[in-house]
């Protein structure tokens, strides 16, 4: 198990504002500033980031990736992982306490603070995946790939969880294959040169994708 302190995955204000849809040119109002400060303080007090890593071979991952046979016919990852230098399974979570606080704010009629803290937590969870990728030693270009995205069916979580067993860090799967706590992340770390991660985002499921984050990810490892 790899334990982090809350500050290790504390998002920057710029990242939180961007995730909330506030452009960099917009002034931060005093009211939003107060929300950001409150959320940051809550984050430091409540977050319990931790994760696990496990090296796997390409052959072992092939079985895990096949999962329950529900992946899309063609996916980016099925061409990416065979050309990787190294592979590792990963799982991480920021714990339940932040999630409970978000629910509390929603229930108390404070959607603004709930939203800002949720944004903090989402950004921090992404950052946690990056920290785990950094911990995958000796590989310059590592990207995380997760079930539930880009044609890797979410039911693939079952095989992944059987292989890595993140129950020690408090992550469980529900019957729908979603992780609890929600602010958790899992999947495959792929290490390789920039070309390893490149693909053309023209799969049938790309048409329904609203984010196209893959493009920024591919650029980030060039």
């Amino acid at each position: 198990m790899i334990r982090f302190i809350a500050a290790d995955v504390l998002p920057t204000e710029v990242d939180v504002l961007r995730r909330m849809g506030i452009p960099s040119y917009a002034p931060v109002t005093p009211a939003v500033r107060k929300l950001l400060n409150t959320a940051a303080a809550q984050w430091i007090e409540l977050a319990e980031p931790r994760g696990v890593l496990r090296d796997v071979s390409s052959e072992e991952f092939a079985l895990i990736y096949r999962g329950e046979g529900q992946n899309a016919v063609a996916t980016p990852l099925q061409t990416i992982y065979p050309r990787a230098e190294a592979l590792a399974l990963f799982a991480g979570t920021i714990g339940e306490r932040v999630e409970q606080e978000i629910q509390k704010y929603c229930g108390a009629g404070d959607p603004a603070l709930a939203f800002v803290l949720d944004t903090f937590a989402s950004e921090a969870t992404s950052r946690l995946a990056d920290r785990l990728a950094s911990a995958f030693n000796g590989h310059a270009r590592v990207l995380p790939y997760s079930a539930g995205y880009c044609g890797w069916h979410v039911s693939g979580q079952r095989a992944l969880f059987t292989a890595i067993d993140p129950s020690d860090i408090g992550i469980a799967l529900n019957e729908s294959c979603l992780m609890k706590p929600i602010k958790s992340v899992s999947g495959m770390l792929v290490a390789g040169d920039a070309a390893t991660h490149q693909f053309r985002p023209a799969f049938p499921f790309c048409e329904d994708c609203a984010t196209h984050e893959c493009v920024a990810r591919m650029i980030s490892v060039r």
Partner: protein
Amino acid sequence: MILQELHAAVEGGDAIRARSVTATLIEQAGGAGEILNGALLPAMALVGARFRDRDIFLPDVLLAARAMKASLGLLEPLLLRDAVPAAGTVVIGTVRGDLHDIGKNLVSIMLQGAGYRVVDLGSDIEADAFIDAALHAEASVIGMSALLTTTMTGMEAVIQRIVARGLSDQLRTIVGGAPLSANFAREIGADGFAPDAVSAVEQVRALVAR
């Protein structure tokens, strides 16, 4: 004048001020409908317009919604007493297989702020549960949320069940969530698509008016 104060408090996201001004208005025997229609709803409409113009952003909108809710907390008994009708009833939930609910919660609060009665079913909701709840609550709109590409297909299941149960003329559907697009919403036969909580209110308003 004091209605303008309430308007300003809601627009500025000042929940404490909104509540105190509402209390004063009630003491002065202001009618619940007058307070709602003369200050609260126009303030939220202005907030929505400023959000659309990118003059303010979602946290500011949610602060305004919090102020609106603080005022409504005092006003609701009077609205019931005076039989001021809700703008409509919406059943809302996150579809089967998905546990993410922050977006749905925000939409729920925004709809309440716009004068709608909201029946929030929570997350991981079966298709027929949406429909049964809508029939029970006499809702005209079902709102569905999903955050994963693999669970957003659950929305189509709800729409197919509405058709199969012969309720297409009675129930409208609106969908939203990070991975969704207007194209996807059209393909599955949804009546509306909301990329954010503010447009969800506008979409519901349009669907209720049909």
